[in-house]
Structure formats: structure tokens, C-alpha cells
């Protein structure tokens, strides 16, 4: 019950956002049930119109557009979520350790992050992808590494304000190890801003992967993915057909929704009321 009450009082935008997020997760989980055809199955002529057997027509190779949209939710969301999780595990942990340990560990990590952040992310990703080649694994690793730098900055800054407090000092004097300090003392007190950041980072990673896929350098065919679906069918737009825009719309909708929810969470947790 206590969970439902704040939801009912949340602004309309946040309620809408939550609804969309839940819907996407359901679609991603039950993709094989919802999709009438297989992910890579060629079922008809290329660029078939809407209606009839194919709800949203077919794509350039004659695969069912609707089925691919449904599977795209699973692939694109899954990879973006995995990447964000990895970035948080690496960046968050390093940030906390840097704040707790200080000294040369902190200096070394911070300077490394400074240098990595001096290069624009997209350019860096393109540079590395051109060397290691484009496949899903290197995509996830590269983006997670680049994003971990941003997470590192935040988690270090947040942890810095926690580390100087008395209870951490007390734990240190008790002789607790690094793992205890990170997981039991600092992390619980740094969680709130990190969770909000997770939402924002997820949006960013999601847009980033979509953009790379759109450029043909992200998730590779024949895997259904929203970015590359736009690219494959873009020709149709010049004929006034909007079906290539549907995957792009799907990307836009989820990022807007997550942003709405994060905005609300931040507003609530800060207790800040603009004058």
C-alpha cells in the first residue's frame, strides 16, 4: 500500500513514464509470445503495406515490421541495460574505492578518467570500434568503459562527502576492511544520487547504442534492433511512409519516460521547491 500512495500523487508525467517503462519491460520479456512472426524470418515481399497479415507492413527484406519491433525491445533494451550495469559496477566501485583510499590510487584513477573524458565519447567509441571491429561484445565493453568514467566522477564526489563523516572514521578505527567500508558504510549513504544517475545513464547509453546502430556500427544484422531498423528502411520516408520512424519513436518514448521518472525522483529526494 505504501508503494501505491506516492505513485498516485506523482505528477502526470511521472505516472506516464512509469507506465511506459513497465509496458516496455513486459514486451521485452514476452517478445516470443507477442510477436506473430520470428525475429529474422522472411515472411513476404519487401516493403509490404500496413494491414492484413502484416500489422505494420514488412521491412526492406520482407521481415514482419511489428515482430521486429517487439524483438527489438528485447535486444536493444537488454544490451543497454547490461552496458549500464557494467558501467556502474566498474565506475561506481572505482569511485568509492578512490574516495575511501585516497592517495595515489585516487590520483591515478582521477587523472586517467580526466584523460578519457577529454575525448568526445562518440569519437572515442568509433576509434576503438574501428580497431577491434564491430560486434555486440566489444560494443558493450567499449561503451561501458566510456560511461564508467562519468559514473566514477559522480560516485567519487558523492562518496567524498560520506567518507569524512564520523561513522566511517569509527569503522576505520575498528579496523574494518575495504570491502566492508565500501558495501556497508559508504554505499548505502551514496545510493540515492547513484540510482537517479542510473536512470540518466541508461538513457544516454540507450541513445548512444541506437545512434551507433543507426550508423551501422552497433548491433549487427540480422539481430532486430531499433537503430539499425531505422537505417535499413529510411528510404521509405522519402515516399511519405512513416513506418521507418516507428523504431525511432520507440527509442524516443522510452528515453522521455525514463527522464520524466528521474526528474520526479530527483525533485522528491532533493526536497527542493523552486521559488
Amino acid at each position, binding site marked *: 500500500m505504501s508503494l501505491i500512495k506516492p505513485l498516485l500523487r506523482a505528477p502526470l508525467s511521472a505516472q506516464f513514464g512509469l507506465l511506459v517503462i513497465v509496458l516496455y519491460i513486459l514486451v521485452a520479456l514476452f517478445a516470443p509470445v507477442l510477436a506473430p512472426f520470428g525475429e529474422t524470418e522472411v515472411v513476404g515481399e519487401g516493403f509490404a503495406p500496413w494491414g492484413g497479415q502484416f500489422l505494420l507492413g514488412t521491412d526492406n527484406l520482407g521481415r514482419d515490421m511489428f515482430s521486429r519491433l517487439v524483438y527489438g525491445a528485447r535486444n536493444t533494451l537488454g544490451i543497454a541495460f547490461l552496458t549500464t550495469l557494467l558501467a556502474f559496477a566498474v565506475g561506481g566501485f572505482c569511485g568509492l574505492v578512490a574516495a575511501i583510499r585516497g592517495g595515489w590510487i585516487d590520483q591515478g584513477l582521477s587523472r586517467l578518467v580526466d584523460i578519457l573524458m577529454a575525448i*568526445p565519447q562518440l569519437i572515442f567509441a568509433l576509434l576503438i570500434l574501428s580497431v577491434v571491429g564491430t560486434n555486440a561484445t566489444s560494443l558493450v565493453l567499449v561503451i561501458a568503459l566510456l560511461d564508467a568514467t562519468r559514473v566514477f566522477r559522480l560516485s567519487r564526489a558523492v562518496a567524498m562527502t560520506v567518507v569524512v563523516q564520523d561513522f566511517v572514521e569509527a569503522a576505520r578505527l575498528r579496523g574494518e576492511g575495504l570491502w566492508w567500508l565500501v558495501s556497508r558504510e559508504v554505499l548505502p549513504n551514496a545510493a540515492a544520487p547513484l540510482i537517479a544517475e542510473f536512470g540518466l545513464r541508461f538513457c544516454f547509453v540507450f541513445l548512444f547504442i541506437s545512434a551507433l546502430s543507426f550508423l*551501422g556500427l552497433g548491433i549487427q544484422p540480422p539481430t532486430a534492433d531499433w537503430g539499425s531498423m531505422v537505417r535499413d528502411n529510411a528510404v521509405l520516408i522519402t515516399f511519405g511512409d512513416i513506418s521507418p520512424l516507428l523504431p525511432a519513436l520507440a527509442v*524516443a518514448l522510452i528515453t522521455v519516460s525514463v527522464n520524466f521518472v528521474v526528474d520526479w525522483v530527483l525533485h522528491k529526494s532533493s526536497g527542493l521547491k523552486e521559488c
Partner: protein
Amino acid sequence: MNSLCKLLLQRLALGLLSLFAVSVIIFLAVGMLPGDVAQAMLGQAATPETVAAFRAQLGLDLPPLTRFGHWAWQLLHGDLGLSLANQRPIAELIGARLGNTFTLALLAALVSVPAALLLGMLAALYRNSWFDRLLNTSALSAVSFPEFFVAYILILVFAVKLNWLPSISNLAPGASFAEVLERSLLPVLTLSLVVIAQMMRMTRAALINLLASPYIEMARLKGISQARIIFHHALPNALAPIINVVALNLAYLVVGVVVVEVVFVYPGLGQLLVDSVAKRDIPVVQACSLIFAATYILLNTTADVLSIASNPRLMHPKG
């Protein structure tokens, strides 16, 4: 004044240092290539002797430090090396495209900066009104849209439905200025929309923070007009954050160009970069990355320098 100079010099040195670090990273990226450039250029069929000879010709058998020095020296003389794909000098490939990309970014900046600042000020002035809420919600949405989505919607509306503008921006070499302008209008619009949203939000936030401070309250109590408070009292103090926001977004613009160029088939550096990544033409990728990264660092350093210079507190250090 002295400490100000010192701060500025520090920033400049930091900028140069990151530029150097970036060039080292970009140089090292090639070392991660399985095999090496000589192998990649000659292909799988080449005999080991040919590869070794070619390696010596390229100077790849020298120690890495010497090679880096050589590479950096050539770079400073404008020699970017040869493309793996077609053996043409990279400087030739990049030349005209570089100009195109900067034109695009410059036009977008000219449109977006004044618009964003104006909208941000209006939103701060009429905050919590329906106008502010509308601006905020649309800005939040625009920030979360992928660039290609915005681009294709603009194409659908202006090029396909209304038929006002061309949907692709392939520039002919001898095009007149009006033609260039017409062809690049949609890419410029796309870039501007994405950047305006971000800049507007940050301008609004910076101004609102200031408007809550006691000296503004005082000015209000004295009965000074709203416009004078904004332009005379709040704006000079908001200058530093606003300059920062503008420079950061311009830096973003330089990168955002990549996707937009691909959508509109605009003959710029971004498109060359993406094509080269797909072809794994590493020297071209290196050169393009270096140009993008250098511009990015330059803009970020300028932002730092300007925001230090526009902060009057630093002009009169205490003690």
C-alpha cells in the same frame, strides 16, 4: 591580476597536456590492431618478406617512441599519411569536408545560441507559468530524442509533405552560397533543436539560482523594473555558467554533427569518419578523431578560460 594570469596559464597548459595525451591514445590505438598497418595494406596473400620490406619502408620496424615522434612531427606539418582504402593522401580527403563540417556547426551555433539564451531568460522570467512548463517539457523531450528521429521527422514534414526543402544535402563543388544555405537548412535545424533544449534548460537553471539570492530581493524591494533586474543585476553574474553551457554545447555540436551528416548525406568529416570505421581504414579514423578531439578540447579550454576571465572575484584576490 597576477593570480588571474597564473590561473589562465594553468588552464592553457592543461589543455595542451590533454591534447598531447589524446594524440598518444590515438597513436596507440593503431598498435591494438591485430597484425599491423603493413599487413592490413598488403592483405592476407602477401609473403612475409614483402610485408617485412614494406614495414621497413613505412618505418614500422623502428621503436614506438621514435615512431610517435615521427608521426607527431609529420602531423604538425599537415601530413596526415595515406588512406588504407585508396592510397590517397588523407589531407586531400579531409580538406573540403572539414570546411563543410565547420560551416554546418557554425550555422547551427549562430541559430541555436541566441535562441536558447532568449528562451532560457524568458523561462526564468515567467517561471512556473504555462509558458515555462511547456518549454520545459518540450526541452526535456527534445533532449531525450535520438538525433536521427528529429532529423527524419523534419525530413518528413519539410521535404516530403510540404516539399519546401531538399531531403538530402549533397553539395556540388561549385554551389552558390544561397544553394549551400538551402541545402544545409534541415541539418542545421536538426542540430539546433537538440542543442537549444539543453542550453535553454541550463540557462534557466543558472538564472533561477541567482534570482533567489538576497541582492536580487533587495533590488526588487527598491522597485527596480523586472527587465533591469534581469539584464543589469542577474545576467552579469550568470555570465560564467552561461558561457560554460554555450561552450559545452558547441563542443557537443561538433560531435553531434556525425549522425546528422549521415542522415542528410552531407559531405562532411563525420560521414568520412563513419565510412572509414566501417572499412576499418585506421589512418583516416585517426586523423578524423584527432581533428574532432582537438576541436572539443579547444572549446572546453576556451570555456574554462572565459569563465575564469568573466568572474570578477578572481580579479581582486583576497590578502
